[in-house]
């Protein structure tokens, strides 16, 4: 029997690692991720979770240890946030370049200075070019399901890339919600034992990280790009297959809500997407034809889905809890880039909201939507990027 537990998303992430039968965990504490690896440490030490837990001395070492473990053929896991993630930047390139299917929850937290431990997606989104697949979750159930799905995806021989599963600081990490944890045998059926295509093996020695000359470097990078393209096809398939097994489906690449007849579409990420559904319902009652599309996967970016959504919509209002300084919000940028080759494009306005953990409630989103609807009726936007509720 599937079991329903009420727990924080961090503990749920730990249970997902256990359910995925992860073999090696290497981690370093950092708020607000710490309780993921603390719970794992408890489970491993008590013998409930058959894995090796390495208490490393920094996140840089955590990722290096994961690379070693994955290269030796183990299903590998770590978790981090903010400064820990950006300290990992160098070995993250090595994890993807070595084609190792490591899965890592990232508790999205603001980067300093000034010190701030609250929600902000600039930490993970600024890692977009590391070759990692990036998932963003909207509730605790999705955190569990996505970790299982991520292993299924990453270990597929058409992918062989690492993935991060992002959950916003405190809004998810420390918030209790009921989550259904399926039977272990059923999870084992869905996600069989990891069988790597190559491993470090004394009887069949191979060498990682050798010189790759200009003659072949591009070809290896092209293969990574191909895998990212493959992921766009596999992610929705795996999500569907998961739902057949366990009942939950999270929208594949983009979680769409009332988008079919919508003139105005809110493009969001993470928990802002859950709040956006409330705003959509409220505004629909007022007669606005509005929908919400929550970007579930940021890398590979679902540009084909964005183009499909753009076919019938008059306007996109993009809400980013992060900023690429000198340009605009990450999702706004990618949305525009996805549409520039299209002839018929909706209006696009970017909204920067909730940086450093400021609340983005359905009320904030309704305000954004009303401003956007006004611009949509006029047929032009007044501002390319709006900083919502900025104290000036």
């Amino acid at each position: 029997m599937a079991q329903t537990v009420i727990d924080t998303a961090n503990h749920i992430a730990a249970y997902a690692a256990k359910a995925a039968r992860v073999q090696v965990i290497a981690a370093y504490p950092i708020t607000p991720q710490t309780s993921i690896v603390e719970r794992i440490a408890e489970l491993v030490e008590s013998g409930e979770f058959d894995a090796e837990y390495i208490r490393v001395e920094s996140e840089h070492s955590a990722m290096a240890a994961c690379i070693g473990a994955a290269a030796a053929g183990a299903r590998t896991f770590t978790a981090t946030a903010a400064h820990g993630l950006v300290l990992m930047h160098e070995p993250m390139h090595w994890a993807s370049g070595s084609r190792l299917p490591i899965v890592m929850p990232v508790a999205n937290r603001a980067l300093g200075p000034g010190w701030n431990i609250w929600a902000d997606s600039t930490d993970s989104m600024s890692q977009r070019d590391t070759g990692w697949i990036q998932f963003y979750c909207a509730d605790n159930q999705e955190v569990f399901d996505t970790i299982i799905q991520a292993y299924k995806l990453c270990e597929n021989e058409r992918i062989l890339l690492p993935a991060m599963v992002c959950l916003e600081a405190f809004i998810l990490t420390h918030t209790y919600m009921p989550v259904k944890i399926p039977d272990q045998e059923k999870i084992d059926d869905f996600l069989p034992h990891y069988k790597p295509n190559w491993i470090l093996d004394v009887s069949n020695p191979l060498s990682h990280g050798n010189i790759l000359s200009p003659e072949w470097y591009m070809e290896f990078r092209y293969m990574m790009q191909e895998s990212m393209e493959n992921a766009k096809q596999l992610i929705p398939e795996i999500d569907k297959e998961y739902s057949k097994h366990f009942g939950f489906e999270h929208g594949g690449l983009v979680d769409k809500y009332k988008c079919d007849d919508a003139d105005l579409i809110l493009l969001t990420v993470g928990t802002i997407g859950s709040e956006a559904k409330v705003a959509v319902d409220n505004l629909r009652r007022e007669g606005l034809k509005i929908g919400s599309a929550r970007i579930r996967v940021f890398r590979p970016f679902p540009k084909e889905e964005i183009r499909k959504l753009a076919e019938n919509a008059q306007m996109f209002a993009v809400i980013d809890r992060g900023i690429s300084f000198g340009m605009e919000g990450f999702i706004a940028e990618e949305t525009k880039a996805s549409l520039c080759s299209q002839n018929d494009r909706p209006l696009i306005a970017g909204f920067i909201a909730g940086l450093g953990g400021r609340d983005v409630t359905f009320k904030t989103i309704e305000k954004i939507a009303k401003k956007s609807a006004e611009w949509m009726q006029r047929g032009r936007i007044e501002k390319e990027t709006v900083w919502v509720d900025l104290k000036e």
Partner: protein
Amino acid sequence: MTVIQEFEKHPLAKYLRAERFPHIWCEGCGDGIILHCFVKALDDLAVDIDKFVVVSGIGCIGRAAGYVKCDSFHTTHGRPIALATGIKLANPKLTVAVLSGDGDLFAIGGNHFIHAARRNVDLTVICSNNFNYGMTGGQSGPTTPLDSYTTTTPYGNIEHPFNLVHLAAAAGSVYVARWTVLHVRRLAESIKKALRKKGFKFIEVISPCPEIYGRRNKLGKAIDIMKLYRQISEIRHGYDPAKAEITREKIVVGEFIDIEKPTYGELLQKQFIKIQQKLSEG
């Protein structure tokens, strides 16, 4: 009387930022005592606070950089010594002190520690050692004793801890001392001595963490931990730091190393003059 007015009556208040108080440290934490000894040393030495910089990293004691009323930098995890080295070399007239914890200085930042000690950069490094990562809730770290309990070693730690004074001495520190927060007067004197001396100076301060490490290891209340310090600490100046391992039965404290050696800044200056002379000679 407002809280700030009350605060400013304290004789050492001029070294602290009243608006930052109350501090974040738990009841019974040793970090307040360390900060007190530190500012008392500044006061006793009549340090020119305009030429004094405090750098800290991440961890409970890291907040100290925000509490002292001088130029200060609360930097990223593990990097205070690297950052302090930059400050000292950019402006050698400044006196630079690092206040940080065992996790920050010896795990994620361990490399910076040994290399600054090796180069003999003119810095005073004070480490609050509470045997775990207190700020994130008590995980095991580089000084966690064998067999002790933390959130990541719920059945006891199996990793050997660093003997920090031995590490500091082996890496080349010119001054190495260890105290507990019970040794208030000696600690303040030790900080004064370190601040007056040139080169890489290291003071380890054993500090109670009654709320987290203490609770998990059943060490009792803060007062019990202080009593334990009185019971098991033994002052032995000049003792071989290699033999000064901390055990459940004994904490050897005192000044272990006090030597003279040219600092990195002095050698840099000398090299600069040498090259200038060579160039002018053609």
